[in-house]
């Protein structure tokens, strides 16, 4: 049995330690908002936070997570930055197919937690690991800026 801390709760898993976190989230915990895209940390669809840092869950082994806090898209509405981003995503009508958007929001959220006034270059650097095959990059950029403004106003 492995123990993980996911979205603020301790959960016990009967899983192999070499299994990537992605599959524990999706299959064991039914947290399917985190997506499988490439399996080798090239597309960003599986992005989650580990101790607040954006990480590709498809390439993060369960054995590396002792004592760490995992946060997924399902818990974003409970965070200030996550809430601001989700509202901005709706305001800018960002998603098309929507498959990559959990990962986009997780990458954006980790950036905004540290930097509430991101430049275009900051956004490029935070988001360029997240592929969107529908091409929603410009609305994503606009929504991140909107969320940043609302976070700065909120202090």
């Amino acid at each position, binding site marked *: 049995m492995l123990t993980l801390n996911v979205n603020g709760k301790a959960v016990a898993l009967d899983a192999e330690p070499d299994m990537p976190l992605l599959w524990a989230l999706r299959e064991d915990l039914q947290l399917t908002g985190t997506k499988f895209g490439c399996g080798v940390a090239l597309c960003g669809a599986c992005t989650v936070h580990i101790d607040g840092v954006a990480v590709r869950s498809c390439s993060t082994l369960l054995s590396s997570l002792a004592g760490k806090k995992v946060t997924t898209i399902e818990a974003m509405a409970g965070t200030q930055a996550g809430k601001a981003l*989700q509202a901005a995503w709706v305001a800018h009508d960002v998603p098309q197919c*929507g498959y990559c958007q959990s990962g986009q929001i997780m990458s954006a959220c980790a950036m905004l937690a540290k930097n509430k006034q991101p430049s275009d270059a900051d956004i490029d650097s935070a988001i360029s690991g997240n592929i969107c095959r*529908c*091409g929603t990059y410009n609305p994503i950029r606009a929504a991140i800026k909107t969320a940043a403004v609302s976070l700065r106003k909120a202090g």
Partner: protein
Amino acid sequence: MDKKLEHGTATDTAATAATPGAAPSRRAFLQSGAALVVAFALPATGRAAAAGATALSAYVRIAADNRVTVVCGSSEMGQGVLTAIPMLVAEELDADWPLVGVEQAPVDQAYNNPMFGMQATGGSTTVRANWLPMRQAGAAAREMLVAAAAAQWQVDASTLTTDKGTVSGPGGKKASYGSLVAAASRLPVPAKPKLKDSKAFKLLGKPTKRLDTVAKSNGSARFGIDAQVPGMLVAVMARAPTAGAKPKAVNEAAAKAVKGVQQVITLPSGVAVLARGYWAAKKGRDALDVQWDLGAAGQLNSAAISEMLDEGAREADAVALDQGNPRDASANAAKTLDARYEAPYLAHACMEPLNCTAWVQGDRVEIWAGTQSQGPAQGILGQVAQVTPAKVKINTLLLGGGFGRRFAPDFTIDATLLSKISGKPVKLIYTREDDMAAGFYRPPSVARFSGALDDQGALTMLKAGVGSPSIMAGSGFMQLPANGVDAMALEGLVDHPYDIPNQRIAYGRREPGPQVWFWRSVGHSQNGFFTEGFIDEMAAAAGKDPFEFRRALLSKSPRHKAVLELAAQKAGWGTPLPKGVARGIAVVSSFGSYVAQVAEVSVGADGTPRVHRVVAAVDCGMTVNPLTIERQIEGAIVYGLTAALYGKISFKDGRVEQGNFHQYPMLRMNEMPKVEVHIVKSSEEPGGIGEPGTPPIAPAVVNALFALTGQRVRSLPIDPAPFKRA
């Protein structure tokens, strides 16, 4: 598993009890609407359900609290049908838009795509095909509600008006749709309801937010890969690397030794490992260490394919267009030009790897999948599992991208076979590498052009031969016509808009082997590049401005001309740009719409093109949702630009050389150009919008590169080498 989406909420409903047999066909619905209301009454879900929703047809339900649910038969793959279809219904229904939700339809003739005659989504048809039928569904429901109010108030229906879900009558009488729906549902369905004049539209043509955004921003949206069936196993396959390859040696014992692996099953398409979860199945798959006998396909190499297609282009004898006297025009020309263009195989690379969950139980099949072709799937999977099509239930979930790939049946067939053989519910998941190598590619193509100019620099002759495999012949549901011309191999070329007196355009079918398929904008994706590249070459040969050269040839194609002029004007064609940046222009019509694009391009020191800005002008006739149009054009530009810069599937000794995104790169945020989309106001019939934005971008970019460097790109993806600065 069906999705129900409402404004501002993300209602994740349980499976509905609607079975294919329980839903009425369109014909039956029109013949005896009232009786069918009962047959179609779905178990109520969400807030609408709590109040008790009543069906007025297969397409519209209204609850006592005035919530409207529109049932959408098209698949949502990002193109916005789960918003467009409700808009069409709501406009004529005079519904209160914030109270309109949408639900994915089961498979039934009532939801057939009228342009296909089957329930399927593709070819940028959803709005074109449903523009009248879905408005009629809304108008019929409205007339039933009005008739119910007229009967209740004992007044003539012609004295009543509707707005925002309310019927109003003489003396300030008002009744909500919710209060009238029960009575309305007992009335006959009008066969020919009156439709609004387009000038009276309140919703259609107005930028409208999508209904699926909240669910797609909080992780609750359910895609095919998210399907959960109790007791299900996950399958990962060692897929045959070439069609017809046979496993010579399989280490089944090693796979079965992996903890969690339950079963190993060999199918015609490969060897599957079934396990309790993906990771065990994947480890088991890797442990199989399959040695393949590739057969004749093991000889397949990209260089030989290119040669074969070139021969097809040179010998092209299936003539699609023969006009005037190309030979004489060439002999009498002041100047002639020959060029060879080439485009590679392309994978769709949807963000959601292909997957399907299937459960075969006795004489019943149920699948959960993001599919573009649920109608045909009923018949195909019935055959696969040897049950009658009516016993095949298809649950259409959201598609994490489709682009034509999810029209193919390979992933639903294999999942169904695995469930039938194992006796368990099975979720088959393709790894990214499986998805990339599984075939169903955009066909590769070689085009050989000749053009002639007279002494005034006017284009007097165009000859083209195209060598390419046939989608029609390989599709399994279409046939190559008697003249031997695959319409898709020449679309975007044979229907070019330019007024040229002498022309010969022909097709030389060649079949290298790999399965070819529909890829966003199909033949236009390569032929737009070929044609608009070569026209640009002719403009340069004539010493003319590429915009003016095209414009002069468009006197018989006013809609092309209008978008070309609009794009040029909005882009500031002819105005100065910073040093090292140049513009290119292209115009292509496809799927009933007209799109021109101007790209502003520079080149990095390593020769990589950088696209800074794209200005697009689109005429897609009357519009449903301009916001969707803008986003679809922008997304289609990204799709086409990704292919132009990076896209190539190649073969070595029978095997696909690309596996993951490091070998088949995607455009990313840091490479994203600014995009402006300008929509032409039009009263023409609606055109398609999912695909028409893709074809013009590759030629606009290569034409800009020519303007910048004098180097002409005739093969995709763009090779940076000639542009590299020492």
